[in-house]
């Protein structure tokens, strides 16, 4: 073996050993996090999957509590897939998700564009704008409950009376579970089928108020990565504001928008707090049905099955988003 080749071989071996040592070090650093993830994510996940194929209920026998599980195959899944109430839950959850997303995305991008401009007090406005996000979800729900209170002492009714938009004895029941456009032929039937009620629309307002800052700030972060030169060049070429937004801003924001869409869809599809706190079981979104099956009825197998069905719906939607937006962008 020539000397140079031997030296080269030694150097390579040393490099390999160093790389292997670095990998081991990295692995050692990751191991605690991996074990924690395993405990808090994968074990419960596989256990829930196991439960979804069983008729599972909690019993206490001989002074010891435990889960009594009887294998039922796909029965739990088929139960929901054949149940018209489950499909109503899917429709009403989809309505909440789609309408909320539309408002959040349009308003979020709009607010981000404003916050991206330079104006006096921009730092303060940005700080104040983030505040709703800091409000806990339960507090947010209770707060909107006080605002939507259907009597004269409700904040919104009181305001409308003070402004003489409502008479002194008039009040609005904002959260009334009445289908919108119910007196319009055909449209009323569609809204009723979708579960699009006056109540759910006001709940969307309450929920959007809280999450809009997140959407706007993520979009703002995306906006700040777009080079100013692109806009300057476009201006030189005579592009107007709309063309600059449509041809530069939006395409450049696509990766961020995909992340926001997937994240918000996941959040919205499993909405629970604001609906349960203000409407109890009146709006049976999927998360409320899951809670009811598992914790009210004590049917943990069915609860796990419906949770996995929600997961599959979210996966499907995320797949569609990525195919439609992200790949196209590449």
């Amino acid at each position: 073996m020539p000397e140079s080749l031997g030296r080269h071989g030694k150097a390579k071996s040393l490099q390999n050993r160093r790389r292997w040592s670095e990998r081991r070090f990295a692995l050692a650093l990751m191991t605690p996090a991996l074990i924690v993830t395993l405990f808090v994510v994968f074990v419960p996940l596989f256990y829930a999957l196991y439960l979804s194929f069983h008729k599972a209920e909690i019993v206490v026998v001989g002074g010891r509590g435990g889960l009594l599980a009887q294998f039922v195959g796909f029965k739990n899944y088929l139960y929901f897939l054949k149940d018209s109430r489950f499909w109503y839950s899917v429709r009403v959850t989809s309505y909440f998700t789609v309408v909320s997303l539309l408002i959040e995305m349009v308003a979020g991008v709009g607010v981000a564009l404003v916050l991206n401009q330079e104006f006096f007090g921009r730092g303060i406005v940005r700080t104040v704008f983030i505040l709703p996000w800091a409000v806990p979800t339960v507090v947010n729900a209770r707060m909107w409950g006080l605002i939507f209170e259907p009597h004269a002492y409700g904040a919104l009714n009181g305001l409308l009376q003070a402004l003489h938009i409502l008479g002194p004895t008039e009040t609005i029941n904002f959260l009334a579970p009445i289908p919108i456009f119910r007196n319009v032929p055909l449209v009323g039937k569609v809204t009723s089928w979708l579960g699009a009620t006056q109540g759910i629309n006001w709940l969307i307002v309450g929920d959007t108020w809280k999450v809009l800052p997140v959407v706007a700030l993520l979009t703002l972060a995306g906006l700040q990565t777009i080079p100013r030169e692109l806009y300057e060049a476009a201006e030189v070429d005579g592009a107007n504001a709309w063309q600059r937004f449509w041809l530069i801003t939006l395409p450049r924001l696509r990766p961020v928008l995909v992340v926001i869409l997937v994240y918000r869809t996941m959040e919205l599809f499993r909405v629970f707090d604001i609906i349960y706190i203000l409407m109890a079981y009146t709006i049976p979104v999927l998360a409320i049905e899951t809670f009811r099956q598992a914790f009210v009825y004590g049917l943990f197998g069915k609860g796990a099955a419906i949770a996995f069905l929600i997961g599959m719906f979210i996966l499907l939607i995320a797949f569609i988003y990525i195919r439609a937006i992200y790949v196209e962008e590449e």
Partner: protein
Amino acid sequence: MRKLTFLNLLTVLVLVVLTACQPASTVAPTKVPPTKKPVPKAVTLNALYMNQAGYSDKVLLDMANKFHEANPNVKVNFTFVKYDELHDKIVTSAAASTATYDVILLDLIWTAEFAHKGYVIPLDDKITKKTRDDIAPAIFGAFIYKGKTWAFPFLANFQCFFYNIDQLKQAGFNGPPATLEEWYDQMVALKKKGIVTYPYIDSWNQKEGLTCDYVRTAAQFGGDLFDKDGNPIMDQGAGLKALKFMRKLVDEGLADPASMTTDEPGAMNAFVSGAATFNTNWTFVRGNMLNPKVSKIVKSARTGLIPPAKGVSAPAGSVSGFQGLAIMANSKKQDAAWKWIEFATSPEVQGQHLKSEFPVWTSVQNSAEEKRINPDAGFYATNLANVHHRPKVPNYPQVSTIIMEDVHRCLLGEMSPEQATKDMVTRIKALD
């Protein structure tokens, strides 16, 4: 590649270990005979209670301190939750090999479910005949399932009739209605004269309160939603009449449409603000309507009998919402738990809190002290004597869901009372 292989190996290894550590999927059906152990030294009891209605957390903590003074070796540690969270907490506590909570507050509607699944222990061998004789069978009966008593009565909660006498007088009436028909006439007059926009408010959102209100309205018509064997019969007799009456109140604008999105505290808030003349609600309303900090109708608020329909022999029709104290079957401190239950439910302790709650003991209900403190004790006693229970079946939560869904849809005008009651019967019978 080697890194991946190592990671995969590690993952599989941990999974195998964890799977081996998993609790068995089935509980071995071995029955351990109940053993009486002496109360150990320095026991801390974990008790689950609600912080919504009934005895307040302050009162409970005060009771626990007095109990600790009398029993220095036992300390009671409370967890207070909202009523809606109680059931879930109890179920998850039952899932553990050793109970998270030793003593729980058991709503009467869970008696059958908890007894059937073995969550709580029967208390019959601990209850003396003298004790049984001093508590009305209507109260004790709520906690009896398959011949055994699963909780000791703690809260004598039931619905009462609350009204605003000043508004009634403005409408030309001297007093509350004696019958359901008179009640309807009074509501019509109140609305017609513009004294209130909606004379009546109730808790008709899709929650347990709606099922209770439907059971109570059927009781006002002198009947029940289920026969004595637990079969649903709401599509006939009192059940059908009750739903027709509730729907009529909505259609004619006598019941506040906000009822459909309101729970019991919300309905009370509207009543104590003066927005409604009538409210049928649980006993907690009385304390609030007479409290000037929260009520605008302190001087005009009154309690009365829930008016029965003409021809019904009972003087009132109400619904029970009793709650008892029970011992978890997986508790390791059952003797100490019973000591606490004996103390907290005793006539002496209940006699110290007559201002806040109606006692479960007949002797205390009839005492001069109770009559002095609660001038409405007579109405309370009559409403209590005429309570109707919700069905005692292990799958009660599912049964109640069906009732509240169909009643709610009927009140929203999506179904007729006939369709709704028929649907309830069909769906309840189809439950496995």
